[in-house]
């Protein structure tokens, strides 16, 4: 079906296998192809702009779509003609951010984009400087430009409340502007990407193949391993590297441990936002056990530093396995007890039920992923649909709810938590013996690789183009929050201000994943005053 659509429109198929179709589509046909693909059941996963001038003499845009029916990823590639590509946002609104990002970072113009405004770069970033072009260096500095404050018409009956960049609910620098009437939210605008860390540039210009995993896992402080894993899988896909089976199982175990700890963290945060701090303490008390597991398995409280391209670095021996099973057994009971009791508290349930509803149609158009999608009645799970690591050999259920409110998201995570326990137990049981790391591989030149994992927050996609040697040409990580965030304004509409924090939190946002600005200046670590920081930011 997918292949037919592509062939019918005269696209050139670059790669076609079980998981991935890569096709070159002409500019003229792009919108049509996108529309047809969307109608065929694909949703927009992500878009990548690549400066391919050294290679092909043009800029290219890759739209990555995930087809749930065929359980395949479709990547459609287009070259920019005189820096112009038709926008597909009018057809698939999920492409909005990705196209704007390419616009900011590469400088491609998208014709027909409904809101061609800056997304990633700060307002005082000079025009015509595009950081992801190859001539721009990772430590290059540019002077800031004057920004004139926008004049806005003020409505005396509407209060504008800033939520962020520094707000205790978000813990991360993101900014929402809520327009409220009384306490009712009648509008919301989002301006994110306050912390663009320049990870992609760093990876392609400074780091080597096996250094990137350590950067990738630092995309997120919670779901680091899943980013790391997606990256490794992407490279393994590009270079066709065989990963030892035992390594696959170890990855699966760690991924699930990470999910458990992430979900428990979310339950805690949700309780805290609802004012129930004891619930927060209880869930975090249990979560501590998973930190201990992580420490036991990886040597660090976070599941960091475990993965490399081709396998994992540390084995799980019998001793560890025994300990692990012990802890799991205990925590499973406790988790059930605590969460069941929390779910019995009426005032908490009242504040989640019917709040922040995201209807299925909107959810699909935006392309939300993970628990947010499952709570809105979309039956999707990368672990099941595109089995990676050892998930193909394990048994688990995917919870789906139709309500689309905060409570549904709570319940999806609730059920997933117990599925994760079950997966870890299975994986530990079925784990085969053998090697854990395959270091015998060579990196081809200009090969495409796609890595995907089901992070605790949803589908996590990493797209890699190799350069050969031990370098990457382009690496594009896309965190689940990137797709989920645009849905938040829809959820907020018409709700009370008091519910805003729990609604924003209900997608389990991870802004650090989504934004990519830690100041990296050669030779010194930034420990600077505010003025210095502002100077450096430019």
């Amino acid at each position, binding site marked *: 079906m997918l292949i037919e659509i592509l062939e019918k429109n005269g696209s050139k198929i670059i790669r076609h296998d079980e998981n991935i179709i890569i096709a070159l589509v002409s500019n003229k046909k792009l919108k049509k192809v996108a529309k047809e693909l969307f109608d065929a059941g694909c949703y927009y996963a992500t878009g990548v702009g690549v400066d391919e001038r050294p290679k092909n003499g043009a800029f290219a845009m890759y739209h990555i779509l995930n087809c749930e029916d065929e359980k395949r990823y479709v990547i459609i590639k287009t070259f920019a003609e005189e820096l112009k590509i038709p926008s597909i946002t009018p057809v698939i609104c999920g492409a909005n951010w990705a196209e704007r990002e390419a616009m900011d970072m590469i400088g491609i113009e998208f014709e027909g984009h409904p809101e061609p405004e800056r997304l990633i770069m700060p307002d005082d970033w000079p025009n015509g400087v595009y950081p992801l072009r190859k001539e721009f260096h990772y430590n290059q500095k540019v002077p800031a430009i004057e920004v004139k404050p926008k004049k806005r018409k003020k409505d005396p009956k509407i209060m504008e409340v800033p939520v962020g960049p520094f707000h205790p*609910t978000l813990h991360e620098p993101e900014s929402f502007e809520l327009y409220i009437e009384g306490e009712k939210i009648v509008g919301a605008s989002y301006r994110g990407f306050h912390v663009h860390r320049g990870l992609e540039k760093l990876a392609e210009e400074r780091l080597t193949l096996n250094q990137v995993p350590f950067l990738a896992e630092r995309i997120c402080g919670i779901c680091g391993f899943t980013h790391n894993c997606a990256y490794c899988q992407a490279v393994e896909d590009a270079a066709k590297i065989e990963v030892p089976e035992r390594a696959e199982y170890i990855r699966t175990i760690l991924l699930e441990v990470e999910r458990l700890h992430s979900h428990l963290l979310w339950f805690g945060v949700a309780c805290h*936002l609802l004012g129930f*701090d*004891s619930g927060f303490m209880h869930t975090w008390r249990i979560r501590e056990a998973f930190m201990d597991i992580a420490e036991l398995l990886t040597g660090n409280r976070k599941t960091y530093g475990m993965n490399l391209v081709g396998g994992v670095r540390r084995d799980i021996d019998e001793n560890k396995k025994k300990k692990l099973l012990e802890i799991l057994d205990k925590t499973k009971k406790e988790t059930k007890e605590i969460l069941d009791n929390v779910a019995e*508290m009426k005032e908490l349930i009242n504040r989640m039920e019917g709040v922040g509803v995201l209807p299925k149609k909107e959810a699909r158009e935006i392309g939300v992923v993970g628990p947010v999608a499952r709570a809105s009645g979309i039956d999707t799970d990368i672990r099941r649909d595109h089995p990676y690591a050892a998930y193909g050999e394990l048994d688990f259920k995917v919870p789906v709810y139709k309500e689309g409110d905060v409570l549904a998201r709570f319940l999806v995570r609730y059920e997933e938590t117990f599925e994760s326990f079950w997966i870890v137990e299975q994986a530990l049981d079925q784990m085969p013996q053998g090697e854990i790391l395959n270091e015998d591989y060579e990196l081809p030149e200009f090969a495409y690789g796609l890595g995907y994992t089901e992070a605790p927050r949803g589908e996590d996609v990493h797209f890699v183009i190799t350069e050969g040697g031990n370098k990457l040409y382009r690496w594009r990580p896309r965190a689940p929050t990137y797709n989920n965030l645009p849905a938040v304004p829809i959820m907020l509409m018409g709700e*009370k*201000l008091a519910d805003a*924090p729990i609604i924003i939190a209900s997608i389990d946002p991870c802004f650090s994943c989504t934004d990519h600005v830690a100041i990296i200046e050669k030779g010194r670590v930034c420990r600077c005053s505010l003025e210095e920081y502002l100077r450096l930011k430019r």
Partner: protein
Amino acid sequence: MNFLVVINILFALIFAPLFDGFERKVKARLQNRQGPSIFQTWWDLIKLFKRPPVIPSDSIKRLYILAPYITFTAVLTAYLIVPTLLPQSLNFAGDFILVIYLISLATLIFSLGAFSSGNPYAQLGSNREVSLLMSEELVLAFVVGILALIGRSLSFEILFPLPLKVSSILGLALLFVVIYVSSARIPFDIPEAEPEIIEGPLIEYSGKHLALLEYSIYLKRFLLYSLFLNFILPKETTIRTGGFLLGLIVLSIVYSSLEAYYGRFRLDQAIKLMKKLSAVALVAWLIALMGW
């Protein structure tokens, strides 16, 4: 004139933060934490008192600056009327109504100060504060009505202690709830809700001002505890003193454990609850009217 009231005030000034420290300890225990030492609240206050305040540029400065002082003294004034450790108080200085109004004065000035800070969250928080005050007054008015009917008086001399009746038990139970609501605890800490509107009215206050406001919150809670206990305790001095201290500890434990195990209400939920409670209060008032 009875100058023993000075002892009462001093007692409250010293012990109100200590009881907060104690409550923090209790809450920590209920949340499986070590918790800070019970002197922590005092250390916090002392630290804050040492810090210079910051004044927001959009604020109406005089009102903004004066508000914490007046809030504090308004609460303190109520100690002239409600006895704490010693049963003596300046009886002629006022009655139940005055105590209620002094507490509303504190709340009012506090929210006016916050309103004048120019911060959107402070405005929202004060708006919630006043909304909650209104709905809480609905129940409180009934409580006052019930207690006044039982004692046929509003004077504390006659109301302390209440006779054992169905209506007095109901009235005290309602008072118990109202005290809980007005002491800004979860689930009724809606005006200050930290994750929603970032401590609301307190948001711009800092240093000494913040210390005064926090201190007045502790004093207000302590005042309401004392008020409640006075309705129960007999007049004999020795039993009363012991009972008072014991009662304070019991109330602290009960209130703080309730606070630890509740989620925050939305404002409309809280108002709805108060409306329902006022229906209960109406029944209790009818019972009091019967003289039961």
